[in-house]
């Protein structure tokens, strides 16, 4: 009944039996009566442990994640930050590198500003606390930010950063990928545009193999203005 297909990873749906060995259960699975089942719709990765890599879903932060957030509100002592998750995050005024007054907060980051943050705390009720990354607040004043599903972030980065390196190499842009699926691209307008196109394509084809080669070809074709209708 459950045929295994020869894609590089098996597509599974919630409730699919993955293993009879409960000790192998990892993320995206659950165990019942000593058996491991899939908890989500995704790709089963069966090496030492069995985990299921999601194909969709909402970003949930974990401590240490570096994300791109957008200020959505300023309260007396906190910036409220949207991090593309079901939960709003907060950065407390005291996390700012130097001591500031409440009235100065809007000078540093206004509503609508984007910046790079680090997640420093997530509690049981999903209260999320942020701090500037590496002690220095980086507000993004130039370039553009695109949203992709957080599940595609590993593909955008590539193995050991190969995909990001490829984009930086072929195009004259700086790229920063947040764990929450927000990607900052900064460079010349035409290059930024092409980078956005390439990233959208990576997102769409994230589950296929040979993607790096196709993106290389895509960038070269686009750069030489050759358009091939597929």
């Amino acid at each position, binding site marked *: 009944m459950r045929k295994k297909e020869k894609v590089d990873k098996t597509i599974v749906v*919630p409730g699919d039996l993955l293993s009879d060995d409960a000790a192998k259960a990892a993320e995206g699975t659950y165990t019942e009566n000593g058996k491991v*089942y899939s908890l989500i719709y995704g790709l089963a990765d069966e090496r030492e442990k069995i985990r299921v890599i999601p194909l969709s879903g909402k970003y949930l932060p974990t401590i240490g994640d570096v994300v791109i957030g957008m200020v959505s509100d300023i309260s007396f002592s906190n910036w409220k930050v949207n991090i593309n998750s*079901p939960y709003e995050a907060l950065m407390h005024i005291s996390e700012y590198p130097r001591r500031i007054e409440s009235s100065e907060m809007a000078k540093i980051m206004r509503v609508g500003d984007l910046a790079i943050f680090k997640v420093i705390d997530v509690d049981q009720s999903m209260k999320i606390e942020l701090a500037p990354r590496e002690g220095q607040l980086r507000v993004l004043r130039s370039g553009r930010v695109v949203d992709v599903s957080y599940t595609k972030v590993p593909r955008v980065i590539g193995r050991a950063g190969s995909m990001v390196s490829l984009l930086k190499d072929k195009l004259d842009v700086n790229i920063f990928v947040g764990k929450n699926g927000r990607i900052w691209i900064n460079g010349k307008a035409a290059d930024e545009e092409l980078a956005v196109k390439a990233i959208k394509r990576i997102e769409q084809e994230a589950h*296929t193999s040979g993607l790096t080669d196709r993106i290389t070809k895509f960038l070269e074709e686009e750069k030489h203005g050759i358009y091939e209708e597929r």
Partner: protein
Amino acid sequence: MEFMKNGKRIDDRLPNELRPVKFEVGVLERADGSCYVEHGRNKVIAAVYGPRAVHPRHLQEANRAIIRYRYNMASFSVEERKRPGPDRRSIEISKVSREAIDPVIIKEFYPRSTIDIFVEILQADAGTRSAGINAASVALADAGVPMRGLISSCAVGKVDDTVVLDLVKEEDNYGQADMPIAMDVRTGEVTLLQMDGHLTLEEFEQALELAKTGCARIAEMQREALIQKYRGEENE
């Protein structure tokens, strides 16, 4: 009305045969997950949003997500124009459908949030609540919601003293009984069971077994549809 002729039903099916069913996953761009289902002449679309922040705030739960389910019939879904908006029937169906799907969702992963499910009946021909649950379940998986399994649903009933699977409109309206059920096929847990009409105990047991075989077939189709969404793109 005569329903059974030479062991065949009014639409030429056998008593234990489902109508043709088609699932399509990810049909809506804006929703987090979606599914379109054609179940015989039923046409149903389901959209899932979330987990997301709860509005109004007083509905939120501190330690888990809440599930909201809206079943709605389009005014053009039935022969005589239906007055739009919720009515007694659709409020009841929303409630029982939510309770049919709720037990498999892992709500504790998403405190203070909501998962909203919208089921729109575009065309109705008996068994819309089942079709809606089937679509909603696939749409939830498509949205990446963690679940212990998929919920599958179908109806059984009785016409001309014969227990039959998956009634059409005529069989439902003029038959002797109609009984929709929903279940997690893997565990065998039944999450919805309603009955309209009369069945003897023996008939009930026979009907329940028949419904389970129907749900098992639906479950296979749901699974196949989800897998096809990604495999289809690969074979471009």
